[in-house]
């Protein structure tokens, strides 16, 4: 608004052309470009796009080929996840609700697993029937749940005084980080059974979760290590002088500070993890991207690539953006400086 107001004033427009000719030309060129692209997009939306490939298949995108009579289970779960997200992002009033939010969040994964897989009073649904967004979310949440503690342990291990722990953690982290994820996933599917006892059979979803988790743990470890390195040595000294033992120092002093500084990096990892679950589309799971691929192979919807891609890109974008917002909320919640920053902003 300010931009338009400033530049539509004819007097300042003249001054603008005279003072910054390059700036003026660039702006005009970009404006024309935007106009052109916008026309293309709008005309595609109005004239060409045929959204029935999306509207006819909303259930498929959401839950894949999950049994129709049980579909309320993943639906309820995803509904509560989105409600929780909205509440967390908007509810600022202190109270019981806000205090219990962290606990509700922690409960989301186990309740999701129980709802999806079945449990007390619920008919079991085999994991090969899972699909769509629900599977994407299960893959990302479960592997993050394993990767976090594993990554923290690896990060602490890498700083251990015991050489053998230090180097085994180092080798693990560095080699995991040098391999492409798709290789880990592909060989996870192929090799995990080879390394397990003959009678031990684990399904494809669990294999994928394990592969994602061992991969992501190495990245989490490096982010946490970055956070640990950012803590001044004097913090450890102060804790030592108070008589805290090494374990207490790690848990009470180092990790809380390291994790807080690592939140932005960890958020990027989490977003990356969610996006990377799409790789399972080329390795035989029908998560969100996989289901779109099988829809596009359906003769009824042949060639409707753009509609499908725009639609699921929007879904991914929405989820990733909410994750980023949630992380920022968490950061604020944990940051005691926020009060001082706010008051500084006001005084400035």
């Amino acid at each position: 608004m300010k931009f338009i107001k400033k530049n539509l004033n004819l007097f300042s427009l003249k001054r603008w052309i005279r003072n910054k000719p390059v700036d003026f030309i660039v702006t005009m060129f970009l404006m024309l470009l935007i106009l052109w692209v916008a026309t293309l997009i709008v005309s595609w939306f109005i004239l060409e796009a045929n959204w029935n490939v999306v509207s006819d298949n909303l259930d498929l995108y959401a839950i894949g080929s999950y049994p129709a009579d049980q579909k309320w289970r993943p639906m309820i779960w995803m509904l509560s996840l989105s409600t929780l997200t909205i509440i967390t992002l908007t509810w600022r009033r202190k109270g019981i609700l806000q205090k219990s939010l962290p606990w509700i969040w922690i409960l989301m994964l186990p309740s999701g697993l129980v709802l999806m897989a079945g449990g007390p009073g619920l008919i079991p649904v085999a994991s090969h029937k899972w699909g769509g967004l629900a599977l994407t979310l299960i893959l990302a949440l479960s592997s993050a749940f394993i990767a976090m503690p594993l990554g923290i342990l690896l990060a602490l291990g890498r700083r251990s005084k015991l050489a053998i722990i230090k180097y085994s953690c180092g080798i693990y982290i560095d080699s995991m980080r040098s391999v492409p994820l798709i290789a880990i996933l592909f060989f996870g599917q192929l090799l995990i059974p080879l390394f397990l006892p003959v009678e031990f059979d684990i399904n494809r979803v669990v294999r994928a979760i394990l592969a994602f988790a061992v991969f992501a743990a190495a990245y989490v470890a490096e982010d946490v290590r970055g956070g640990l390195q950012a803590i001044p040595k004097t913090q450890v000294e102060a804790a030592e002088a108070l008589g805290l033992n090494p374990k207490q120092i790690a848990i009470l002093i180092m990790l809380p500070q390291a994790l807080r500084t690592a939140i932005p990096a960890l958020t990027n990892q989490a977003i990356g993890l969610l996006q990377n679950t799409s790789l399972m589309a080329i390795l035989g799971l029908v998560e969100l991207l996989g289901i779109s691929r099988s829809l596009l192979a359906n003769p009824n919807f042949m060639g409707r690539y753009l509609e499908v891609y725009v639609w699921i890109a929007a879904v991914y974008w929405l989820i990733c953006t909410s994750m980023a917002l949630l992380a920022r909320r968490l950061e604020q919640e944990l940051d005691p400086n926020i009060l001082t920053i706010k008051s500084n902003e006001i005084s400035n």
Partner: protein
Amino acid sequence: MRIPKSFLYQLIIAFIISCILGVLFNNLIVNLIRTGIGINFKWLMRPAGFALAETSLPYKPSDTYAWALFIGWINSLKVILFSLILATLLGIIAGTARSSSNLLVKSISSLYVALIRQIPLLLQLFFWYFVAFLSLPNTPLEPIGKLLSLSNQSLRIAGVNISVEFCALLIGLTIFTGASIAEVVRGGLNSVNRGQWESFRSLGLNERLGLIHIIIPQSLPAIIPGLTSQYLNLAKNSTLAIAVGYADIYAVSDTTITQTGRAIEGFIILLASFLVLNLLITGSMNILNKLVMRIK
């Protein structure tokens, strides 16, 4: 006693680790015997029997698996190198644009970064391949005469033929990596003390000169490590080539493993080829870093 105690701990841990590895290894041996595969690399010298769509060096299906894998590796190197250069340019432009005084330039680059980074790369690759390239007409378009011709088979620039698979992968990787590099560049520029901006302005240098001579040189130490890790990511992400049917090292390994059933050997070869790629990248970046430090 101090040293023996920690030594004892290490012994116990070494024992536990070797137990775990031992159990895993034992299972592996049992499974290998059960399926009758075993481990060896002799198959590498057998004819591959599959064709490759993209070959930078002479290749025919009767050539060995080893040669096919090498061609795949060269293909990987090719796409990594080109998108590395293009993504760096794009990233620098978009990253500096975000501290531009022109509001429009600034918003476009912010929009680019915010959009691209929140959508999976694989989906973006599908878009470039299936939507942008495969929907081109069968008969070549020639927008600027013979110099450039476009069809859903290939792109022809000044007589050089480039496959649409390569193009889709190149564009997808470049645009995705460019957004991450833009963030690295922006972080680097922000790491330079605000006072430096004020002092070059007070000396009468304009924004462009100040950026080139004052700000960028100082931000390089902060930028180069981030850039290195983006390049490593680019190399790893290039394995998504398989999604658009470009014959990179991973795609060739995948076919090889499916044909021969040699999963473990295939994995080892893939690891080794990535080790070499990573060493090439980190090695060159270390040299660059030394040069930059010398200039400082």
